């Protein structure tokens, strides 16, 4: 079975524009807003959201990057160590309203790790979560505040987000379990 396109480049652009507006609405245009992208694809998504917000709010929105490898709860069970990418915060996150940005929300375990990693860096006033795709199957009590698209999926399927910055084009695919082997 061949992969199915869940979002085209235009769908993706519209969803990000909407999320950008929702973020501003939820934080009331506050000057202490900050976006933090989770590696790998949360980072370009966070940058795009920040650029969009800067476009219509005329305010600087700092973007940090967060790697969660050291906080994963399955580290001991993985054979190969995940490569770690840079965690960088351009400003002090203390007392900020931080919006975590990731591409796909699935079990919620990555977000749990991200919360731990972030709280070791500092103490934000508030943490919100934005994801491009929520595919369900949560294993932890975590829910997103901003969602690009809700997609009902089967466990074995994979939602694959492809972005201009990392993959050369914008697209979201649903890949069937059999196609992955």
């Amino acid at each position, binding site marked *: 079975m061949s992969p199915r*396109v869940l979002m085209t480049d235009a769908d993706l652009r519209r969803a990000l524009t909407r999320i950008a507006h929702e973020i501003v609405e939820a934080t009331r245009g506050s000057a202490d807003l900050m976006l933090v992208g989770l590696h790998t694809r949360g980072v370009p998504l966070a940058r795009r959201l920040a650029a969009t917000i800067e476009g219509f709010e005329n305010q600087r929105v700092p973007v940090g990057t967060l790697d969660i490898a050291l906080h994963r709860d399955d*580290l001991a069970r993985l054979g*190969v*160590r995940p*490569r770690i990418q840079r*965690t960088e915060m351009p400003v002090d996150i203390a007392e900020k309203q931080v919006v975590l940005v990731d591409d796909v929300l699935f079990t919620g375990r990555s977000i749990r790790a991200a919360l731990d990693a972030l709280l070791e860096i500092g103490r934000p006033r508030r943490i919100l979560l934005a994801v491009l795709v929520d595919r*369900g199957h949560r294993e932890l009590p975590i829910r997103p505040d901003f969602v690009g698209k809700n997609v009902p999926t089967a466990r074995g399927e994979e939602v694959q987000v492809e972005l201009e910055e990392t*993959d050369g084009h914008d697209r979201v*695919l649903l890949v069937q379990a059999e196609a*992955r082997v």
Partner: protein
Amino acid sequence: MTTTADLDTRPADLLPAAPASGLTMPEPALVPRPTGMPETTWARQHVLDLDDFTAGEIELVMETTDAMKDVLRREVRRAPALRGLTVATVFYEASTRTRASFELAGKILGADVINLSASGSSVEKGESLIDTVRTLQALGVDVLVMRHATSGAPYLAARNLRASMINAGDGWHAHPTQALLDLYTIREQLGGIRGRKVAIIGDILHSRVARSDLWGLAAAGAEVVVCGPPTLIPAGLGRAHPHAGGDRGLPPVTVVERIEDALRDADVVMTLRLQKERQEGGLLPSLREYSRRYEITRERVALAKPNALVMHPGPMNEGVEIAPDVAHGIQSRIEDQVTNGVAVRMALLYLLGGRR
């Protein structure tokens, strides 16, 4: 709570892919991206020396060290990556910074760290060394960090070991973690290692640091020039180096006689501790004679590039191999080396901890 996804449903563009988009963009083929990891991955059980490290492996350690430095900058210097892992430092020889930095590295990453000193002399025999290591393994130790006065001891101990072994210095032979922190410091300060000229001055013969540095610098693409008293340069070092054969006894470097030639246009000036306790009679006329010819003074540093880095693995004999005003001067990166030592060792423990 698992049903909250439904509550969050946004009406806007909820259900299946819009059919309108089906007719455009033939460009990206409709295939999933490959799942395999393309880049260098870590496949080592032990870190005994750098003589067989590839440039890719060194880069992997460097990148991982970058991430560890991020952890060290945090408000809470802690990340639970090694939770459940047990690290044992087994030092048959004195050490301050290496041992302390391994202990800190393990603790910051959430490992349990136990420290053993073998102050007795009964461990000189190979079998008792192996017994010690086996016992630690039976106690559940996952990573052993060993320093030993005998070259090759960690190799012997690592044989048939399920746990991982890190060589923290063996005799005159190797000190790979020091070399990796030296490489990291150069990369961090100069933005890269490839093509940089590194002058290593002093007692190369007795220096395990120098030997590992030479391998690591060569693999990372640095141009290495060595200078020291002829009696303290290993025989054969600097000769045409046929790398093809199985003999990997000596790393590829240039050896020069005059210190001025070594220092000229160097990006890095690295000097080594004169191993006073290891000088057998006859290798050196006197300490004064040594300093006169090889001490890194301000005048000598001036021969190198402006802002060249001055490095020393410590502990220093100030006034012997390095002048105090250079050791504590603005070009000195000696304290950075110590700080980076913790991050590099965190990176190695992280990478080795994956094999269990």
